[in-house]
């Protein structure tokens, strides 16, 4: 049973790794770099907080 579980672990790892690589490729070829890297630190705070004491 343990040996079968070991093979199953290899199988799951390979399948999920390939899925992530596929999804990475799909996203990178669908969206522009500007969109993907558009996140900015503190953006929500700057907009939503008035910062009054």
């Amino acid at each position, binding site marked *: 049973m343990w040996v079968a579980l070991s093979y199953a672990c290899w199988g799951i790892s390979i399948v999920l790794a390939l899925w992530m*690589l596929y999804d990475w490729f799909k996203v990178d070829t669908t969206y*522009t770099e500007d969109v993907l890297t558009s996140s900015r630190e503190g953006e929500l705070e700057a907009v939503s*907080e008035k910062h009054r004491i």
Partner: protein
Amino acid sequence: MTITLEPTIHGDRVSLLRVLGPAHVWALGVGIVLVGEFTGWNFAADKGGALAALIVCWIVGLLYTSVAMIDSEVTSTVAAAGGQYAQAKHIVGPLMAFNVALFLVFAYTMLEVSDAILLGDTIVAKAGVEGLTHNSFIAATIVVLAWLNYRGVLMTLNVNFVITAIAYISIVILFFSVSPWTQGAVLKLNELVTPGNALPYGWIGVIAAFQFGIWYYLGIEGTTQAAEEVRSPARSLPYGTMAGMITLLIAAAMTWYVCASLMPWEYLGITYYPLWDAGKLTGSPLLENLLFVATLLAALASANGCINDAARAWFSLGRDRYLPSWFSAVHPKYRTPYRSILFLLPIALAFAFIADLNQAITFSILSGVLQYTFMSINIIMFRKKWPLGSIRRGYTHPFHPLPAIVLFCLCVVTFFAIFLGFGSQLIAMVAFYFLISLWFHFYRYKFVRRGDQFTMPWPKPQGY
């Protein structure tokens, strides 16, 4: 064809998703740490005896309570992914921030590696099948958890909450199953810990035990990495972190009491599975299997939280151009830092396959203690530059500057303890951070957009 805007994107930017609450913050912090009760803390007994393991449990508990309080105050104000990195950037400066981010990435990646090795070794030990190696279990742990992190932070931390709670409840069940109020029936503390063997190496053994006493709580500061993904950072982060710390203090005390009452310190100090062994020693197959499963779940929860935290620290470095901005990409559907997760995945796998558990643990502890030392200095500077009343704080920690001083002093003692056990690794690591700092200062910093990196809407600091 490329797409510039898409309905799943909020506005014209893709950012991390604010979906987490205090329970997720608790799950992240306690999830990373709880594995330390299942293995790691007990090596303190090897360094200084069973009583030394208890003394460091409380003293290191004081260190981490200081860490949690300081962290809660600063993070409830600097609520950004990257946690201590974002704090260092705003309060100390870019070079410190770069170093802190590397401390974070090293501490969490090496802890993830240690967790995966522990999980693989535990399964192999349980199976007892000749020729079965831990490699497949290590690969599955790292890849499946990376996939979970890739798919979204909410499910990742929901899973962490469930498996951490099961692992924690198993400690509580073990504690009450051995009649802790009665000595002699199952527990034999008065026979196993006597005045003659309580501190076999004297007080220097207690100092040496600090190195592994860190394991009772290592990683609770990881809660801050969720700052950009919690719905209400000023409330959730202090609440989740302090609740996590209280939970861990209780778990650490119960763990020591049960284990020290069932195993002689000579064995307790060298076993890799103190709680699983405690389950075996009760003679109950149910408890033995429960603690076996709980050991696996604790290792999984820790690795899961570490992937989450290391990726966010790496992502933040990319976003500020401290590293190539390519790393700052956010998945437009899952809203996770997917490139950082994928980049760190093969690194963790490589270390897990080639590194030894002790080396990985030591690198993780060293990076963690460097980070705590920074935090003690950071809070002094924070209070000096922005005194109480000058900016809004979600939480204000009491007795300042006492927690900072206690934290700094305990970090010095811990460095000394690490030097006693792993002096060459300590020197090698400090040399590495020194060289990488030179690279950052003389080469990389010219790519940073200096004005863009300071994002908090704070008034000018006092004295500037």
